[in-house]
C-alpha cells in the first residue's frame, strides 16, 4: 500500500452542502403531528375528566408527552431513553419557569391596554375617584413624579458610580477588594430598609415626606447597579490606550478624564439607564419616603408626591373593578418604561463597540 488517497473520482463540481445529522423533513413532520396530537389528547382529557384550567391542561400534556416519549423510545437503548426523558423534564421545568413572566407580559398587555386612553397619560386623579370610568382621570402626575425622582436619583448616583468604577479600574488602590465587596453586598439591601434609612435621616431632618426623600432612597438602591456596570464598562478599555496616553507625557488625571472616560461615554450612559430601570418600579421605599399624591407636584421638596408604583399600589388596595383596571394600565406604562430603558441601554451600549 503506497498511498492513502482513497479511490474516489476527482470531480470539479462542488456538491450541495447537506446536514445529515438534522432530522429529515419526514421526521420533523412526524414530530409536529405527534405533538399536535398530544395537545388535542390533553385537551380531550381536560374536557372529559375532572382536570380543568391551564394547570390541568399542563399536567395532562406532561403525562401524555411522557407516555409518547416512552412509546417512541421503546426500541432505543437505555442511554438515549434516559436522555429523552431528561429532555422532557428540562423542557417542562423551563415551561414552568417561563410561564409566570410570560403570563405577566400577556396579562399586563391584555388588561392594561383597555385603560390606555389619552386621558390616562395627561390627567391626574385630583378630581377623579379610582372607581370612576376609565375615560376619566389618569396617571400623568404619577409618571411625572416617578420621572422626577429617578432623574434626581440618577443625577446623584451617576457621578458616584463613575468615581467608584474609576477607582476600581484606574486607581486600583488598597481598598479595591473592599469597595468591590461592599458594592456587591449593597446590591442586596432590601428596598424597604433603604426607605427606612432615608426616613430616619432625611425625612426626620426635614420633618417632611417629599420627592427628594424618595429620590434619595432610590439612589441608595441604584448606586450598586450603576457602580458595577461602570466598572464592567471601564474594564473593557484596552490598557494600550492608557499606556499611549502616559507615553505622551499625560498625567493620570488627564489620562482618566480625557482619554479613558470619553471612550466609554455611551457605556456610562448604559450604566445610568440600567440603574434607572432597576429602581423605577420600586414601591416599598416610596411608601416610607414620598408617600403618594393625586395632583401634579413639580417641587421635589414640596411634600408628598405621586409615583407610578405607589399609584398602582394604592389602586390595588381599593380593589374595585375599575381601580384594578387602572392598576393594570399603570403596570403597562411601568413595564413599557422598563422595556424602553432596556432597549435604549442595549442600543447605546452597543455604540461603544462600533
Amino acid at each position, binding site marked *: 500500500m503506497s498511498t492513502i488517497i482513497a479511490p*474516489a473520482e476527482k470531480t470539479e463540481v462542488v*456538491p450541495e452542502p447537506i446536514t445529515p445529522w438534522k432530522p429529515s423533513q419526514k421526521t420533523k413532520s412526524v414530530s409536529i403531528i405527534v405533538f399536535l396530537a398530544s395537545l388535542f389528547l390533553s385537551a380531550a382529557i381536560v374536557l372529559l375528566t375532572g382536570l380543568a384550567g391551564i394547570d390541568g391542561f399542563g399536567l395532562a400534556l406532561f403525562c401524555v408527552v411522557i407516555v409518547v416519549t416512552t412509546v417512541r423510545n421503546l426500541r432505543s437503548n437505555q*442511554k438515549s431513553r434516559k436522555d429523552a426523558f431528561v429532555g422532557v423534564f428540562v423542557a417542562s421545568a423551563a415551561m414552568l419557569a417561563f410561564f409566570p413572566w410570560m403570563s405577566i407580559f400577556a396579562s399586563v398587555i391584555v388588561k392594561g391596554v383597555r385603560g390606555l386612553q389619552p386621558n390616562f397619560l395627561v390627567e391626574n386623579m385630583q378630581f377623579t375617584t379610582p372607581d370612576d370610568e376609565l375615560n376619566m382621570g389618569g396617571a400623568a402626575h404619577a409618571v411625572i413624579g416617578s420621572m422626577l425622582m429617578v432623574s434626581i436619583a440618577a443625577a446623584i448616583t451617576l457621578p458616584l458610580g463613575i468615581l467608584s468604577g474609576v477607582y476600581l479600574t484606574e486607581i486600583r488602590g488598597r481598598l479595591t477588594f473592599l469597595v468591590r465587596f461592599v458594592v456587591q453586598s449593597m446590591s442586596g439591601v432590601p428596598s424597604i430598609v433603604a426607605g427606612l434609612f432615608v426616613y430616619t435621616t432625611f425625612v426626620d431632618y426635614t420633618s417632611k415626606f417629599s420627592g427628594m426623600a424618595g429620590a434619595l432612597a432610590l439612589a441608595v438602591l441604584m448606586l450598586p447597579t450603576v457602580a458595577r456596570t461602570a466598572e464592567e464598562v471601564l474594564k473593557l478599555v484596552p490598557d494600550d490606550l492608557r499606556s499611549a496616553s502616559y507615553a505622551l507625557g499625560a498625567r493620570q488625571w488627564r489620562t482618566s478624564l480625557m482619554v479613558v472616560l470619553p471612550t466609554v461615554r455611551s457605556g456610562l450612559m448604559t450604566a445610568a439607564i440600567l440603574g434607572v430601570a432597576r429602581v423605577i418600579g420600586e414601591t416599598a421605599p416610596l411608601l416610607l419616603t414620598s408617600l403618594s399624591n393625586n395632583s401634579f407636584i413639580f417641587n421635589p421638596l414640596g411634600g408628598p408626591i405621586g409615583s407610578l408604583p405607589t399609584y398602582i399600589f394604592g389602586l390595588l388596595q381599593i380593589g374595585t373593578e375599575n381601580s384594578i383596571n387602572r392598576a393594570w394600565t399603570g403596570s403597562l406604562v411601568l413595564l413599557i418604561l422598563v422595556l424602553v430603558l432596556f432597549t435604549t441601554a442595549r442600543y447605546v451600549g452597543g455604540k461603544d463597540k462600533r
Partner: protein
Amino acid sequence: MSQTVQTSVMSMSDGQSESPVVLGLETRNIHAWFGKHHVLKDISLKFPEKTVTGLIGPSGCGKSTFIRLLNRMHEFIPGAAMAGQVLHDGHDIYSPEVDAAAIRLKVGMVFQKPNPFPAMNIRENVLSGIKLAHLKVADHDSIVERCLTRAGLWKEVKDRLTATGGSLSGGQQQRLCIARSLAVEPNVLLMDEPCSALDPGSTLRIEETIKELAEKIAVVIVTHNMQQAARVSDYCAFFLTDGGPGYLVEADATKKLFTNPGDTRTADYVQGKFG
C-alpha cells in the same frame, strides 16, 4: 447533488471488488461548510488500521474541521454542513440510521489542551467514557490498568489513582486523556494537535505512546510540527488553502513526502519556507 453522491457510491462498490473494505476510516469527496463559507474541498483519504497518519498544513486550511468530520463532532457547530462520505469499517457514518454517539465510541478523540474532568480523580477519569456511554463492563480495575498502561502512565500513577487529574503534570494529564479515550475501545483515535500545549519532554513521551497505539488501531494526528509528523507518522497528508476552501495537495508515505514530494508547495512547506 444526488447524482454526485450516486456516482461516488457506485465507484465505491466498483472499487470494492479490487480492494477489500478498509478497516479504519476512509473519506470520499468530503466537503465542509460553516454557513455559506466553504472551508474544505473534496478530500478523499484512507486511514487504515495499524497506521499513524499525520495531517499537516498551515493554520486555517481546514485540518481541524476535517478531523472533526471524522467522528461527527463537526455537527455541533451551528450552521455546519458537509457533503461526501466518511466510511468507518466500510459503513457510511453519516447515513441516517447511524447513531452518532455509537460512532464516537469507535472513533475516539484527544484534544489540543489536556482536559481531564476536574471533578473526578484519575481512576474515575479513565472510566468516565464507560459510564457516559452506559457500557456494561465487569472488571473496572483491569480496564483502568490496561488503559493507563497503553497510555504509558500506569507506572507513574498506580499508587495514587484517587488523586485528582489536576494534580498531574501537563504531559501526564494528556496521557490520562489518551487513556480515557482508550477505555471505550475505539479502533481509530483522532488527535488534534495533542502536544502543542506541552513541553518537549512530554511531547516525546506522547509520541512513543502514539507509536505503541498504532500497533493495534488507526491514529490520525493533526500537527503543526514538521519534525513531529516526520517522527511519528507512517503517512502524511498535506492540506493547503489559497484563501478559499482548504484542499488536499498530496498524501503519501511520510518518508516520500519529506524527501521526495510530488508538489513544489509540499517541498516548500516541509522545509519550513512558509506556514
